[in-house]
């Protein structure tokens, strides 16, 4: 079985072919070709995305109100971060959200993708349904979910009370349960989206692998871990990274559902970034908070990157 698991793409023998000179020539040819392929996207990317993004690295060390030029002020913004309780609070709320939301969404979306990739009757119907939350207006979603989560009359709590002899969480009216509520709604909203990406990834697994595994007598669970997961590794890496970044940058949903409340129970970093920039006019400090968010995302991404490389070897 372990043979099956190794990635079909690896062909180490081919890579070290040719002498010094040709390697160099190939290297130059590859560089030219590679850049040619990348160019159409990269030119747009450089000017429209990378440039403005890099300017953030200056803004984060400046005082700036969005008007005129940013004024460099060294580490002043960073010193402020350490005194800023609201920043610290939203930092931990963001971590809380991400840590629960990422695995939850990944597992459900993956399960959904596998089920809806089988020979299930009506799978086109179910796929469409699963994508619906992502295209439903977020305002409508917030409205209906707050109704379902109503502490007294909501369907969710009526169901919970069957098992708990009358106790039920207060959801959006309590500080403890507001975040779990937001996470549930976010997961509901995003599984369909990630399901699409995973479905596309599942298409790349040759069915012959499953046939061979079946001949070997592997059961469904083994096939999942020995074939599906390894073959999906590049896709999974992509899904993990976008899911992680998306979770750390969560904003619309908390804004519409709770606006950070009750109190500041669901106040996340992205909301703080927006508040500091567009409400308070502190674009410099807002940039500093963005940079923290960026560093947070990158740490997790690089860990995933290294883990992924390690597994592929």
């Amino acid at each position, binding site marked *: 079985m372990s043979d099956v698991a190794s990635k079909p793409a690896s062909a180490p023998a081919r890579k070290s072919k040719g002498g010094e000179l040709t390697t160099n020539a190939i290297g130059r040819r590859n560089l030219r070709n590679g850049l040619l392929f*990348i160019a159409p996207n990269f030119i747009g*990317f450089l000017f*429209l995305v*990378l440039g403005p993004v890099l300017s953030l690295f200056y803004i984060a060390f400046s005082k700036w109100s969005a008007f005129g030029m940013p004024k460099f002020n060294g580490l002043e913004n960073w010193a402020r971060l350490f005194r800023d309780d609201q920043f610290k609070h939203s930092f931990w709320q963001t971590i809380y959200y991400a840590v629960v939301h990422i695995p939850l969404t990944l597992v459900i979306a993956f399960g959904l993708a596998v089920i809806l990739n089988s020979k299930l009757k009506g799978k086109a119907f179910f796929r469409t349904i699963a994508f619906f939350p992502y295209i439903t207006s977020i*305002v409508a979603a917030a409205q209906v979910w707050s109704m379902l989560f109503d502490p007294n009359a909501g369907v969710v709590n009526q169901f919970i009370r069957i098992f708990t002899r009358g106790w039920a969480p207060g959801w959006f009216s309590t500080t403890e349960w507001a975040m779990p509520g937001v996470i549930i709604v976010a997961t509901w909203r995003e599984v369909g989206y990630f399901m699409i990406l995973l479905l596309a990834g599942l298409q790349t697994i040759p069915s012959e692998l499953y046939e061979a595994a079946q001949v070997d007598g592997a059961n469904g669970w083994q096939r999942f871990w020995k074939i599906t997961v390894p073959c999906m590794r590049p896709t999974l890496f992509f899904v993990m990274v976008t899911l992680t970044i998306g979770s750390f940058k969560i904003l619309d949903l908390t804004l519409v559902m709770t606006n950070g409340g009750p109190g500041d129970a669901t106040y996340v970093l992205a909301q703080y970034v927006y508040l500091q920039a567009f409400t308070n006019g502190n674009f410099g400090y807002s940039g500093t908070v963005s940079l923290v968010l960026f560093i947070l995302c990158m740490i997790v991404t690089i860990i995933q990157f290294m883990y992924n490389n390690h597994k592929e070897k």
Partner: protein
Amino acid sequence: MTSVTSSPVAVKGAPSGSADIPFNKQPVSPAKIVGTIIGYACMLFLAVFMVLPFVWMFLSAVKPNNEVYMVPIQWFPSVWHWENYIEIWTKAEMGLWTGNTIFFAICVTFLQVFTGSFAAYGFSKIQFRGRATLFLIYIATMAVPWQSYMVPQYKMLAAMGIANTRWSIILLQAFGAFGVFMMKQFYDTIPDELSEAARLDGLSEWGIYRRIILPLSGPSIAALAIITFTNTWNDYMGPLIYLRNNKLWTIQLGLKTFIGQYSADYAMIMTGSVISVIPILIVFLIGQKQFVEGIATSGMKG
């Protein structure tokens, strides 16, 4: 490397057979049938939760405005205002907004898929110096919240005279890192042997891309197209910042005109939102046909 690993290259057009992941065992026992029924019941139950907000949206679209956010909530309208679906075209400029949105979504999707898959090929299949670094830079830009660099970006485009034109939205959305990253990861699943072999046969890089890789990327292009289309279609902040001329407005921006400073016409917003879902559904239904299990490498000439 065993025969199993190399099979994708060797086998051609083999019947995909019974690749059975859950739900698909051949011998039918009564327990299995009951299980299947329970499975379907669960799926249907979940499906209801998935569409409930949409149903609310649909019903709110035909309510009198003051009933949309009524306390306690009221599912059905007291008077059914079906004419909202006509009025939004006649009294508001829904036609214009839809046209603009379709234009933007198609241009952006096309550019994103085209340049994205092109660049992804470079990143995935051509070994060149610095590609890992460059690729990491691409990913890194995704980790920066847009609201923190949108002002510098706006200033730049405004200075170039592009703000408040159709170009602004197209340029803004088309060159994100998302498409490149996604396509690159999918190309990584295509065995390198394919491109290496073709290279030995003397095929140019363009030839490999065009004749070997592209035909295999149906599902991933479909996924990227669905997602780019949906995101461009539903984008609000981009058009909000860049478009002041109401002849260029998109649906999302246009629907906001129903919100005044102190009050709003929610029924109309819901009407517009319901209509706005239809094109996305069409694109989704076309795209998801690409997700046919197990076609990946078996349908290809070795």
